């Protein structure tokens, strides 16, 4: 169970963007999805999720829309924009470079 501090702001953005790639989701679904896909290792706290989502929206990587959710209530659905897709690729490449580099050092045991 990773503590929220382990997830640097950049990586949280990456995870959110990746999660939104297939379809639009609301905040709760995004959190659950990340938890699910990481095999219950990563639990995103609300305290970091919503500021991140709003920041991504302000910057234009995602766009939001209010629609009816599966429970019948109105919810705010986030979806990826074209610019966001580009940002996702950039972030992924960056992450790969970073983790490869860290890998190199750490496996030099």
């Amino acid at each position, binding site marked *: 169970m990773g503590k929220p501090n382990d997830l640097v702001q950049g990586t949280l953005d990456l995870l959110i963007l990746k999660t939104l790639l297939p379809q639009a989701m609301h905040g*709760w679904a995004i959190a659950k999805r990340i938890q699910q896909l990481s095999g219950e290792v990563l639990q995103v*706290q*609300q*305290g970091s999720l*919503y500021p991140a989502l*709003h920041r991504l929206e302000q*910057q234009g990587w995602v766009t939001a829309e209010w629609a009816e959710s599966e*429970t019948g*209530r109105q919810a*705010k659905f986030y979806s990826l924009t074209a610019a966001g897709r580009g940002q996702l690729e950039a972030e992924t490449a960056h992450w790969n470079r970073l983790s490869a580099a860290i890998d190199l050092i750490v496996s030099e045991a």
Partner: protein
Amino acid sequence: MRWTAKLAMRMRMLFQRRKAAERLDDELSFHLEHQIAENLAAGMSAEESRFAALRSFGNPALLREETRATWSWNWLEAAVREVRYGFRTLGRTPGFAALAILVMALGIGANVALFTVVRSVLLNPLPFPAPNQLIALYSKADTGKGGSVAAADFYDWQNESHSFEQMAIWRWTGYNMAGARSELPEFLQAVTCSWNLFPTLGVEPTLGRSFTSADDTDAANPTVILSWSFFKRRFNADPSILGKTIRLNAQPYTVVGVLPQNFTYPDPKIQLWVPYHKGISSVILHSHYSHTSHVIARLRPGVSLSRATQEVSAIQHGIFARLNGAGPVTPSVVSLQLVDDVVGDAKAPLYILMAAVLCLLLIACLNLSNLLVARAVARRREMAMRSALGGSRMRLIGQQMTESVLICLAGGVLGIVLAGAAVQWLSTYWLALPRANAIHIDAPVLAFAVGVAFLAGILSGLLPAFLFTGAKVYAVMQDSARTLGASATRASLRKGLLIVELALTVVLLVGAGLLFKSFLQLGSVDLGCATRNVLTMRCFLRGDSYAKPEQIVAFQTQLLEKVRHLPGVAAAGLTNVVPGDGLYGDTTFSIPEHPPQPPEKRDSAIFRTADPGYFQAMQIPLVEGRFFLSSERLDNSSFVIVSQKLAKEFFPNEDPLGKHIAVSWRSPSPENFQIVGVVGDTRYQLNEPVRSTMWFPILSGIPGLAADTALVVRSETGPEALGIPIQKTIAGIDQDLPVSDVLTMQQVIGKSTANSSFEASLLGAFATLSLLLAAVGLFGVLSYIVAQRTGEIGIRIALGAQREQVLGTVLLDGLRPALFGLALGLAGSVAVVRLIRSMLFQTQPLDPAVFAGVAVTLLLVSAAACLIPAWRASRLDPMRALRTE
């Protein structure tokens, strides 16, 4: 396309903020509900699942804030919030807010008003095309100041110089215009100018045409161009006047043009413009020795002022070398920018007044700062609470500054209104202000006002903001009400501010005192003649009916005869210019009995005319010899009376009576006039030293020279009442003759002192205002100190201190900053007063009487301000004092 999305986002965030906030709440509660549902599904009870969800949610307020922190326009939201809060806190203490706003309005308003004047008069260029190329040329007189130019010099310069696109010459003059229908005849101020004056300035008449070179010749028909104000006043702005003739000095002049409304060079009083050859006698037109006119020129592009001046100077040197033996030729030339020529003497007073209002603003800021410090001290606990609840120091400082900036902006708005009124008043009543018609409040002035208001707000708020939001703010939480005297340091800060305020006030008071003394000195100057109960008026005898000496003398004799028989008239006389009314002209002369002087040394004396009864009418004493006789007139008028100064200067060891003075004022070559009397000195202008004067018989009847008539009438029963009867008498002799400048001698003197009195009053007003502010500040500080020390004073009284002792201690406590302020201010004044030396008349900048007077005034006012709080302190009831917490 991202930027369009981003822009849309930013717009939404700006205008739909509240909706976004509600949506955020919805979003978060949606998440919470799902969390609760999940917990329920996991098997917790309803209450447990709710608590667990809320716990994992964390602090909702913090979450909301952190999310909102990512939104754009946060800074604007924060600023709006601060301003709203500032309004609320100020609204809670409306008395303080009103006082503070008023104080700042006075300070900012005065600054805006004076800045408007300085900008319009000194800084703005003249309203002509390419105004930097316009210059004025003057003859360089011996005194180093610029003197008028001789016409023949001008024409030589025009022919021989290459540095100018155009050069023009002009001279003040005046014309009698007979009344039409029921209007009175008028004497009109006019300028006679070369035909190219308007093209040189770059001005086109709005109606009709400008002069052509054909108009400016001896043989041309007389033409005239009207000023707009005269056109409107006398002809109701009816364009049909163009092409018609008007009679000036009984001669017909054809109206060819009307000037634009905003053209007021050189003075708004000018009503007519006449070509130079038509307005100047032929003798003067071709003379290198009569210095009568002003020259302006437009530089060629690329030619510098110094180079052009040198060229003209060289030409003048040539003329000097050629002709100096025959008459007074000026050796060289000085030039200045036309705008400096127009503005001239107004520079020093304006800058000094600007400095004074800046002092006033500084005092107002210090006062405001003082008031804010007092408020901040009262709100220490509140600040400490805010700080403890998480307010950063920057935010607390911002809050304090917001208050002071709000006060200053409100004061600024009020100040702009006050400034508008002040500017109107100044341009109407400050008679010596040049370019007064060009003074308006426009956009840069408003920007200045807003800037000053902001600066004042930040300056005033700085001290309380920084001092009361520091790390030590928590100390006050531990401050028990029982500990007394912990506020000593706060009071010393306010006292420090007060000392600076008082010092500035002293500087202003000293300046005002010096100007006032200067004005008094000016007013007490002895003119050398009677100044009480004397009425004067002028008429200019021109035209066909006064072309012959006999006609002029006939009028003057008739006038004197009739006026002397009017009831209430003690004595009457005629001259050309009354004492104190200006120079008007001097003449070179030589003394035949003395050895001939070298040509460079030209003796000159002021030229005056008088009738036999003039000196007695004006009570100018006869030192030696006699006055003119009635028989000494027309052809038998080769007599002269000299002033005592002339006698001392030119006949130091001998009796001047019987000797002669050779002057060429009525013939091209010098004529001998016999000295028949010596009279006491009179001044031609209040603030100028006495000069040698010579008096010729006005009854010599020389057209033009003896035709300028100033009538003086002395009456023991009040001369003002004689104005109408005398004018009627004049109209009875010649109904078309205008009479002008009907003034008592006191009013003539008043013209000279008007400027001095105005400047002294203005500075005095500022000084009084700042004294008031400083007194109020002193009162406030001392009241505060007494309030803080109530407990301590109560104990002292309870332990047996006498009331008088308490009064004395508190009074001394209040007077100490006054004394320091006085000392600092006097020291500052010593440094600063040399700057106003140019505005002082017969007053030393370090005048001990003024300094002493200011010191006494300040101490008295300070004592008065301190008296009430000290009195209250001594009257404290010790029981009540000890119970207050």
